């Protein structure tokens, strides 16, 4: 499975490694729901560290689709909300 961390690049993860990520996703979701920036930053850092350590980085010139896209480690609540409420414009140019 290929995972993209926004602003960083793509990693290849085994299925096992991906299964271990579910709990982190919940932590991120909770943080966004409760509007807790500190918790969000912490949850994102833990999640992304895990991906960086368990995954293999894809070379820059690989043209592969990601199965999962994760926000930047320093994302603010505002940016997360914006990301989630993105409509058709803006995100993908072209």
């Amino acid at each position, binding site marked *: 499975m290929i995972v993209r961390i*926004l602003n960083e690049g793509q990693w290849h993860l085994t299925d096992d490694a991906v299964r271990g990520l579910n709990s982190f996703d919940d932590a991120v979701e909770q943080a966004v729901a409760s509007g807790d920036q500190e918790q969000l930053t912490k949850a994102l850092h833990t999640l992304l560290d895990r991906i960086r350590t368990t995954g293999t980085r894809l070379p*820059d010139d690989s043209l592969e689709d990601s199965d999962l*896209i994760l926000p930047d480690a320093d994302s603010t609540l505002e940016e997360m909300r914006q990301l989630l409420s993105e409509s058709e414009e803006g995100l993908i140019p*072209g």
Partner: protein
Amino acid sequence: MSGILQRISMIFRAKTDKALDKLEDPRQTLDYSYQRQLELLQKVRRGVADVATSRKRIELQANQLNTQADKLTMQAQRALEVGREDLAREALTRRSGIQQQLSDLQVQHAQLQSEEEKLTRASQRLQAKVDAFRTRKETIKATYSAAEAQTRINEAFSGISEEMGDVGLAIQRAEDKTAQMQARAGAIDELLASGALEDPTGTAKDDITLELEQLASTSDVENELARMKASLGPGSAAAPQAIEGQQASPGAQQPPGQAPQPPSQAAPPPSLNAQTPQEYQAPPKQDQEAPPAQPQGDLR
């Protein structure tokens, strides 16, 4: 994984699909997309340059603030030397205000630097992917049948679209942050220009400097006076002589900068020294009478 991260992934995919649907001719898809990639690459490079400019501006401001802080430290020291603890305290208080501004700038500087690094990396990634896409595009055009090409094109296109979306977000974020920084940098520029940073109360223009200058000029005058007295030699009676008669001791001609220039020196025109007033006035009279006489003498 069906939570928030999945949602983010779906947003990206939905956009890619939508963009693909707009274009039906495979060739057009490839060329159009490549064109967009090059444009985006240009935009990222401009973004890097913009962030670098903002960063440099902050560095300049930090330098200016540092100079101010140093100046205030020196002022405090001078104030203490002349026994004005109140002035020294005031100077140090202002310096601590400036140091707060400085540490604020350092945070901003670190943020901009990290944005710059991220964008630089993004630019490299996108460049690599654009190159890969161009190669892939040529291969697809040359090798595959129309039906097969469509699948290959979709693969290549969605791979790079995702990167473009990511980079697009990074640029947007960098632009937002740079705009914020520029607004704050502008405020600091104004503060620096108005001199208000030197005087947070805004009531006077750097009164510490004024007061210290006054103190300094008073003591300078005293010092100068003492020096002049010393240079005039032991007898204080020498002074009047030196002022009236210009040919006094050479030492007396040294301090003319401070000493009031004796009126006797200013009154006679520069030709002066040996000439008496009479001798001095005489030549013009002769000149006036001479012209009529000379031509006659010449002719005869």
